[in-house]
């Protein structure tokens, strides 16, 4: 079991959606669509940390301008960790069981 934080969860999810060998900028754009105030520096550092944890796989890819870039692909361990995190959220915070979106009203 690998416990991941919220930003790590979002980053893994964005990486999964962005496909194989996704660039950091593409992943960040997807993270932004879910969390408006996410900092690029934080997402970039998270990508590096997830790579070190072996939840992401890093490879060298060429971008449109021929520059060598870091491409990120989610690994099997990453998928499992993401599934665990999403299941945990769904189990603990299942909104439908707790009374729908009304419980979030302040």
């Amino acid at each position, binding site marked *: 079991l690998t416990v991941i934080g919220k930003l790590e969860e979002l980053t893994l999810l964005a990486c999964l959606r962005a496909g194989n060998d996704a*660039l950091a*900028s593409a992943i*960040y754009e997807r993270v932004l669509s879910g969390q408006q105030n996410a900092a690029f520096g934080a997402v*970039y550092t998270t990508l590096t940390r997830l790579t070190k944890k072996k939840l992401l796989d890093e490879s060298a890819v060429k971008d449109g301008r021929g520059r060598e*870039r*870091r491409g990120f692909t989610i690994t099997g361990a990453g998928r499992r960790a993401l599934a665990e995190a999403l299941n945990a959220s769904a189990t603990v915070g299942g909104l439908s069981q707790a009374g729908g979106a009304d419980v979030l009203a302040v």
Partner: protein
Amino acid sequence: MSWQSSLGSSVARLAAIDADAAFQLFLQHTLASLSVVITIMAVGRVLILIAAARLNERPVRRKLSARSYSLDLLLPIRVARDAQASLEEVMPIWIAEWGPKRARRIWRLQIFLIVAGHYTSPILTLLERVLKIVSGRSSAE
């Protein structure tokens, strides 16, 4: 008329006028030439001044995402190149949302975050391992 006859007539005219008249003619020609030269110089100077004023009035166009040397200096070259390229790609989002001035500030802050994150990441990993050991879970997980 051939050039010999033209020269001959000029010499004959010169011989006909006296020294005072010749001096006055010389003076007139010299003054006329000087006035032409001064006018040309004045016009040239005005043109140069106009060009200089236009140059000074032209707004300075700085590149919105110039190369960051701090990334090159402080990070491994592979990471620095990728971070720089990624920042260039992300910059238009910030410009569209916040305008060029604030986007540039955000860009600088992100460079700091990337560099700081690069060096604090191993410390965080170590802390996570220590926490795992303390909480009784296997560090191999």
